[in-house]
């Protein structure tokens, strides 16, 4: 067998790269390819990367040339490389660096040696509104507040900008990571966390400092944030999806860094502290007294000289924060997420305003290294009773999902699962409160919804963590920033339609590695042949593309097995 035939890479004419996971050259090829292509899918046997203009411009920003990219492809490809690839790689890479954003005495300028290109940009209506004047034939002055927008627009028209204007340094605040947590446990960043920190920081050069780190749920994204904060040692503003997230950040900062307790501020509905390290929520930031009034809490961005803004669960970034972020291009910006997919398709906006994807690692790779728990996904398909079936067929499309999702047969299956996992820590997660309350009634279990007071929530979470409660019923509050390390079984009974990221986040609730190395089990109960099943298929797409397999079991069969095992 020739060396070529053992090569792990297939280069497609649409610029996707398919990498064979079982090849002995997989790791070396993956490391090289990741420099200029983005990981798109991690199926069990094949990982798909995509070479995009942005990924090539990122590669160019780190000093790669077209020939370097082609060398890697030639080294690992199994089949001849399609003719268009070399042309397109060279073409895209050659565009990078033609336009530069530079800073001179607090003013920002767009420069290029190509007079025709500068003239074209000067005439372009979309770009021109971000420009003040043409200084010379090769220099345009940019409106100071438009630094983010102009980069976004120029990428849209195919002219990437090398942003050399640098970052405004924030107020210094020393942050060091502890080697032993305050809880007494040894602590250091894991290899992949160090890699993510290093790629983002980029030796404090202009190519680093803004971007998104994508890591699976339970893989320690907060630690990556802490690592970057410690390298920069500047005032930091952290945005979270909810108050529980704020509390968890505060807890981690106190436990694992030298930051003093009094220097960590909580800016939420309850408190409005502004400290060197301040943590807030998207909800507070986007609150306003009237629909058409200003967002009063946006002033938080100006309240201190922040050196870093961290966007936790960046895929949830609300539209108003997009806008304000566009004006923060002089600040270093870190996006953290497990699932950079938005059902509104605005992932690209995240890239252009927060920064491109800087680091990504497959869920299954971390699972194989033991950093996240091995999970078994099971879908249990149940039928409807004749009454429900009749009801389902009589209502309009919009109401059908709810009827199917609330199928009462699901309660029997939940009972079977709970019986099967009597010694485990179980979360039942759903969308419809009536349904969740019913489950809570059946098991006399505690339920947490958006209306549960924060203190009550914290008390219940703590009881669950201590093992006093073994079963917790959760509404959509469980979708994010919920750290229950010992939860090892999740039962999903209804969801937000076909939301892929919700499915992934819910699985994420049970992915913290278990002390005894046991596997986590993620059950979805789905009503057969209904909207519920259609949505389930869509919801599972992200996880299956991360290499997870769903086993589908018939509800009757599941109950039968359960009964025979019990006997």
């Amino acid at each position, binding site marked *: 067998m020739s060396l070529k035939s053992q090569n792990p890479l297939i*280069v497609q004419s649409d610029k996707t790269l398919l990498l064979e996971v079982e090849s002995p050259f997989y790791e070396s090829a993956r490391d090289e390819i990741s420099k200029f292509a983005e990981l798109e*899918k991690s199926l069990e046997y094949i990982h798909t990367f995509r070479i995009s203009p942005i990924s090539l411009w990122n590669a160019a920003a780190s000093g790669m040339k077209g020939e370097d990219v082609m060398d890697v492809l030639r080294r690992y490809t199994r089949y001849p490389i*399609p003719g268009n690839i070399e042309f397109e790689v060279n073409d895209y890479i050659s565009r990078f660096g033609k336009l530069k954003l530079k800073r001179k005495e607090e003013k920002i300028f767009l420069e290029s040696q190509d007079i025709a290109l500068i003239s074209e940009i000067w005439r372009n209506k979309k770009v021109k509104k971000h420009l003040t004047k043409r200084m010379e034939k090769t220099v345009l002055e940019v409106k100071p507040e438009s630094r983010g927008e102009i980069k976004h627009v120029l990428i849209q028209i195919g002219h990437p900008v090398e942003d050399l204007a640098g970052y405004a340094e924030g107020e210094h605040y020393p942050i060091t990571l502890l080697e032993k947590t305050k809880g007494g446990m040894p602590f250091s960043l894991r290899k992949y966390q160090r890699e993510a920190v290093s790629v983002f920081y980029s030796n404090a050069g202009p190519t680093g400092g803004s971007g998104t780190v994508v890591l699976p749920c339970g893989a320690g994204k907060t630690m990556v944030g802490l690592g970057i904060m410690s390298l920069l040692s500047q005032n930091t503003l952290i945005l979270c999806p909810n108050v529980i997230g704020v509390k968890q950040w505060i807890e981690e900062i106190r436990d694992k860094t030298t930051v003093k307790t009094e220097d960590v501020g909580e800016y939420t509905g309850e408190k409005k502290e502004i400290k060197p390290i301040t943590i807030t929520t998207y909800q507070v930031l986007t609150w306003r007294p009237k629909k058409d009034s200003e967002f009063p809490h946006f002033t938080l961005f100006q309240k201190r000289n922040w050196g870093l803004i961290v966007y936790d669960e960046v895929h949830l970034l609300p539209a108003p924060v997009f806008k304000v972020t566009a004006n923060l291009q002089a600040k270093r910006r870190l996006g953290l997420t497990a699932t950079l997919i938005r059902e509104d398709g605005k992932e690209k906006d995240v890239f252009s305003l927060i920064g491109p994807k800087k680091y990504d690692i497959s869920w299954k790779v971390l699972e194989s290294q033991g950093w996240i728990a091995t999970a078994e996904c099971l879908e249990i398909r149940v039928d409807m009773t004749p009454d429900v079936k009749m009801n389902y067929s009589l209502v309009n499309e919009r109401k059908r999902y709810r009827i199917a999702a609330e199928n009462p047969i699901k309660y029997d299956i939940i009972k079977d699962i709970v019986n099967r996992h009597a010694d485990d820590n179980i979360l039942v997660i759903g969308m419809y409160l009536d349904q969740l309350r019913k489950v809570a009634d059946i098991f006399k279990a505690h339920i947490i919804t958006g209306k549960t007071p924060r203190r009550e929530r914290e008390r219940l979470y703590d009881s669950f963590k201590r093992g006093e409660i073994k079963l917790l019923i959760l509404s959509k509050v469980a979708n994010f920033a919920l750290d229950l390390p010992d939860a090892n079984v999740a039962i999903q009974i209804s969801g937000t339609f076909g939301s892929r990221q919700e499915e992934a986040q819910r699985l994420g609730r049970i992915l913290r590695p278990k002390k005894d190395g046991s596997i986590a089990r993620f059950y979805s109960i789905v009503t*057969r042949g209904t909207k519920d099943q259609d949505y389930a*298929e869509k919801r599972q*797409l992200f996880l*299956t*593309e991360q290499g997870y397999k769903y*086993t*589908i079991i018939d509800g009757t069969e599941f109950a039968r097995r359960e009964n025979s095992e019990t006997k």
Partner: protein
Amino acid sequence: MKQNREIRERKKEISKASNLEKVFLSFILMNKGKIPAIKFKRIYLDRYSLWELQETEKKLVEKGLVVKSGEKTSKGLSYEVPRELIEVLSESFLSSPSDFDHIMQLEPSQVAPCGEYSILWYLWQMDSEYGFHLFRKKGEVGTQRISQKKIEELLATKSEETRFFISVYKALPALKSLSKRKYKKWSNVLISPHRFVKDIFKFTYDFLREGNELGREDVGKDNIEFFFDELSALDTGRWYSLDFFVSNARATLFLSNQPFRWIHFDEKNVWKILNQKLKVVGIVETFMENGDKKFFRLTKLGMYCLGEISESDLLEDMTSHMGKFMVHPNFEVTVVSNELDPRVLLELAMFSRPEKLDTMSVFRITKDTVGKGKRLGLTPSEMTAFLKERCKGGIPQNVEYSILDWSH
């Protein structure tokens, strides 16, 4: 003389045509050499850009391979291949069926009805997503119940060979059911590809035996039988020169003291059968070196048609592609196109949807495609068995379960 020179020149142009140009030409050919521009664009722009269309059109018109006729408005304009080039082009495409991979996404309604079995081969190549179809136009039969005889008439009007073909197929249950159903748009008959080829071969064989393809009408039957005996004695996959084959066959005749040693058996006629009758259906592959020295080889499919290997042997061969064929839990099937037997792709396309045709092609199985597979006559267990046989490490449980579930 001048006209021949022109055709030769254009032949050269055809041989040098780019893939995009071939695609352009094939769309016109499928419509019997002339297609309204408006219809053409609808098909072409499904896969290619307007820029590619304009550039390719310009080049082909310059080369004289395409003529724009009719009014200059987009409604009245048509693309046409010069009549004298149609045969040359067909020849050229037949020599490289892989050129037709791109047509896999054509809708049946975009393919013109044809009668020639060589054209049926085109359709088989092109229309793999739908399995093999015989096409007929709505206008010709309306939505009335039609008799089998009527179908034969409709499909057999083009040539004698097609009539033979239909006579072979008239007993097929699929064709019978065709006559019993009402059709609003297009109708089809599904036949699995290798059986289809074998059946075509049967009637080709009968046709040859009855004819005088080898030059002597009085001994046509014996000639053909002897020719196929010699052919089936060859090793599969090995290239033979035509000279070797003919001289060897003659020597066999002489040595074995055959009663038919006086059979007329010359290179020209043998090549005619190989290149015009058998290559078309994939029984042999042919190759010409410097336009002069001729070679051919017998395919595995050819061995099956000649009765040298069983259907299970043939199908086993089709499954020996482990690692090149993967089914994933997200319902994607990835296949290394150029290392897989095209027949495997054709069968896969019967119950999946091609999403990307490239070095590694991607097909997707959905509820709808499983429904399509069922309509084309596949059972759910046949679909899962097909995947299991070829897929390294088996197929994901959720895919198998869903195929069975969707079929209910």
